[in-house]
């Protein structure tokens, strides 16, 4: 789907040069350059905290730059706010959408018009809205009179895009637009983006998913630590390795310390066990367990309910069902103090709002969890004196900075390390970290990973929540995948890669379509249907529907198996476009590869039947699966 390079490059839409931006004392941008042409999709890449979101927000008028210039359509522009940006035709589609949930879809699309004096002509607006959606090839996918709160995240995103087109935006920035989409929804988004490119729009695609960058962008710009390190390079000339090197810097190949030795944690006792945890309204059914000396990754898309799950375990959120056991004893879910005294530590996701107490000194911030766990009238700080010194050395923080009046004078990375130390001080049995490297520079990330390894080596059980699949795969021994508030898979990370995680984490809406089809197939023919990923000798099952227990393929949803360990080894290894009977004649199985409309591998759909029945035509079943895949 790459854009054919034409002899005459299209005109430049926007040039940003030497942009700097400082927040408090953190340098977010230190001389960033960016160039965008008309009719291109331009990838803006970088690790967490590289400055790509800040740069997008400078271009879209959310922030004003400290220095540097922006040239747009041949003129220097000064954007004071987003309204200025919208007026000249620059719009941004953000992760947290800027929609008004209680207004209708139509009102949201034309929100800028609501501010104008005079009466609104709803009929005219409806026609314009219809025309915009048609131009995106999404004619009927948005019910105009629904309230926006009822929409899925993909639909909300479409509203945002339509809103940008409603003000005739020429330049649209997509800030991590795929973070909460299923693979099928991603494909649809990419179609929309491709159409916008055809009509001469300039699109900025902010992402850290390389695979998506390669499949949709024409050129890429890579940022690192607030600077542009690769400026407007044609995507086609790049390899994945080159991009990664640009993103993380040459010497940081080994950011995830030594690869975990499989089976390392298996000997340890189970420290934390969660069974059928429910927390209204987001968490519906989550179960997992962690052993001492093991890092468990909790993965999933934004909105899957991971933060809510760990907050409920720790007692920050009321539970409505299920059971949590810590070190074999039940843990009540009503109060963090009880959890801390029982040996649980929790580094919450948002540093600024959930962790840092800005008016207390660094020392007291470090000792805050101690204070929470401490019994007694006084503070009992002196009892921890020695441990504090020891931790400071490990963090590389000079002791005289302990009395600093404010944590906010430190870099995000150092703040995070101090917060982690807050919990290490208590020597917890289980430590839960929610997005521990969010907004942390890459150097500190490496040292945070090293700290995690140290903690685990000391026999602590660690749970890490992360949206960054690469990080999750890099540090965890095992990964539990959550989707729509349910834990749906529990697999060793050695068996997974980013692509598989993305598929596993897909929202249940796409899974529901798949289940419906498997149901139909299994019921019509009286057997078992399944959806699985197959790589080499291993299989990861995404979904199963069994109507006849005798025809069960030998694995369940969320499980991983060696092909030989299933009940249908022959079919799985041959993968022929026809029913393959097993050696023991108990089952005969048809396996159909499933692809997204953009040619993405979505794994295999299988149908196990009894060899004694009349077998349906493989072509007919394949056609139905293709139809389903197109809608996934």
């Amino acid at each position, binding site marked *: 789907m790459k854009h054919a390079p034409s002899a005459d490059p299209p005109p430049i839409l926007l040039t940003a040069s030497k942009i700097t931006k400082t927040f408090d004392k953190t340098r977010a941008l230190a001389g960033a350059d960016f160039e965008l042409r008309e009719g291109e999709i331009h990838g803006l890449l970088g690790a967490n905290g590289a400055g790509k979101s800040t740069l997008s927000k400078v271009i879209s008028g959310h922030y004003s730059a400290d220095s540097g210039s922006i040239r747009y359509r041949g003129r220097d522009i000064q954007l004071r706010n987003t309204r200025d940006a919208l007026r000249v035709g620059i719009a941004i589609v953000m992760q947290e959408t800027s929609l008004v949930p209680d207004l209708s879809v139509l009102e949201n699309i034309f929100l800028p018009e609501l501010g104008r004096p005079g009466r609104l002509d709803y009929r005219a607006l409806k026609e314009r809205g219809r025309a915009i959606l048609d131009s995106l090839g999404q004619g009927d996918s948005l019910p105009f009179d629904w309230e926006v709160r009822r929409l899925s995240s993909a639909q909300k995103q479409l509203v945002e895009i339509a809103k940008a087109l409603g003000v005739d935006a020429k330049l649209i920035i997509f800030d991590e637009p795929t973070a909460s989409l299923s693979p099928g929804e991603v494909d649809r988004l990419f179609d929309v983006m491709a159409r916008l490119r055809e009509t001469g729009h300039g699109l900025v695609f902010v992402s850290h998913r390389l695979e998506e960058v390669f499949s949709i962008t024409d050129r890429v710009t890579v940022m690192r630590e607030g600077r542009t390190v690769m400026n407007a390079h044609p995507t086609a000339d790049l390899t994945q390795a080159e991009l990664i090197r640009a993103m993380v810097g040459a010497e940081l190949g080994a950011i995830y310390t030594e690869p975990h030795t499989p089976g390392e944690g298996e000997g340890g006792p189970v420290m934390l066990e969660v069974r059928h945890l429910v927390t209204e309204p987001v968490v519906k059914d989550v179960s997992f367990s962690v052993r001492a000396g093991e890092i468990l990754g909790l993965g999933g898309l934004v909105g899957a309910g991971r933060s809510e799950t760990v907050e409920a375990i720790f007692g*920050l959120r009321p539970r409505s069902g299920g059971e949590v056991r810590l070190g074999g004893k039940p843990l009540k879910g009503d109060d*963090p103090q009880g959890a801390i005294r029982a040996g649980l530590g929790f580094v919450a996701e948002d540093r600024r709002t959930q962790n840092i107490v800005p008016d207390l000194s660094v020392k007291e911030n470090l000792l805050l969890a101690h204070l929470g766990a401490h019994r007694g009238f006084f503070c009992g700080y002196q009892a921890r004196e020695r441990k504090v010194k020891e931790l400071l050395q490990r963090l590389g923080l000079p002791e005289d900075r302990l009395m600093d009046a404010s944590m906010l004078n430190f870099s995000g990375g150092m703040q995070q390390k101090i917060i982690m130390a807050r919990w290490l001080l208590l020597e917890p049995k289980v430590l839960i970290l929610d997005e521990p490297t969010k907004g942390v520079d890459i150097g500190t990330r490496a040292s945070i990973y090293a700290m995690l390894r140290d903690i685990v080596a000391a026999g602590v059980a660690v749970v890490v929540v992360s949206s960054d699949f690469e990080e999750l795969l890099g540090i965890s021994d095992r990964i539990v995948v959550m989707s729509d508030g349910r834990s749906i898979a529990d697999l060793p990370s050695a068996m997974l890669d980013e692509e598989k995680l993305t598929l596993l984490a897909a929202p249940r809406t796409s899974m529901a379509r798949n289940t419906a089809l498997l149901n139909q197939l299994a019921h019509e023919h009286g057997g078992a249907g399944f959806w699985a990923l197959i790589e080499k000798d291993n299989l990861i099952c995404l979904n199963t529907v069994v109507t006849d227990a005798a025809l069960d393929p030998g694995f369940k949803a969320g499980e991983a198996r060696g092909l030989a360990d299933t009940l249908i080894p022959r079919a799985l290894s041959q993968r022929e476009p026809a029913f393959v009977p097993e050696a023991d004649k108990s089952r005969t199985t048809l396996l159909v590869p499933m692809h997204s409309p953009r040619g993405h591998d979505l794994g295999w759909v299988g149908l196990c039947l009894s060899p004694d029945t009349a077998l349906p035509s493989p072509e007919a079943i394949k056609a139905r699966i293709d139809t389903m895949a197109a809608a996934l």
Partner: protein
Amino acid sequence: MASITVSTPARGSRFKMLAQRLEVRMLALALIIGLCLSLLSPYFLTQSNIFNMLDQSVVIGIVAVGMTFVILTGGIDLSVGSVAGLTGIILGLSLQQMPIVPAIAVAVLAGGGIGLVSGLLINVFGLAAFVVTLGMMAIGRSLAYILSGQTAISNIPDAMQNIVYTNILGIPSNVLFLIVLYIVAWAYLTYTKGGRTIYAVGSNKEAARAAGLNTLFYSVLPYVLSGALSAVAVTFSISQLLSADPLMGNSMELDAIAAVVIGGASLYGGRGSMIGTLIGVFIMVMIRNGLNLMGVSPFWQGSAIGTIIIVALLVERLVSSRASR
């Protein structure tokens, strides 16, 4: 790997370090005001006027302690004046029925009980502190009138005067009480788990909760203290006047809040200290006393005090923003 990106703060001269503390700057302000007033009125710095001012500091000073606790958690208590009025009447009525000590206990418990109700409404039901204590303010004053039958209770036993007019080590007992109260409150806020929790709650309640601190208890406690201390304050007033008037403590909340804020506390919580509040109390009392000495009409005093407070805070804001740069 540069782990610390910020230069170490300037800690050059001792003077600069001192100047960075708000209390020090406010102490300087208090001294300047004192100096000006002593130039304007020769009587200002006499021993008897100084004792007079210390005496005047007691009631407002006691109420300001409770107010500091409340403001440190990010709350506000507008009801202190009315609670003082109501508990004063309760004390006056109790003194008709029982000896002095139990009567004072009844009044203090009543004040604490009112604070408990406010604290629970604010922290359990999530109502705004401003609104809840505003309501309590109206209720308290109204009950004070009803219980007293709209007149002052004047048959207070003379023995009540011992509370104020006993000298211990040459210091009047009410001033001594104030000094001890401030030392205890300062030590509590600085050295105990509860005190540090109060700061943490005001600075970032969510983080405090996530660290296992008992945020509910220490959010409610300041309101209880504030109510109880209002009753203590009014006890000193009554023992001086030997009369309990339903109008007592009228607009006292404004003086208390002003003293705490002048003392450097942030109305958003988490910042402030007992030393600062004490200086704030002295500044308020000095200004009022000085204006009286100069014969400024009471109708103009409000304008003068209001202006001085606002200008002082404005100057402080300008100075501190320059100091932190």
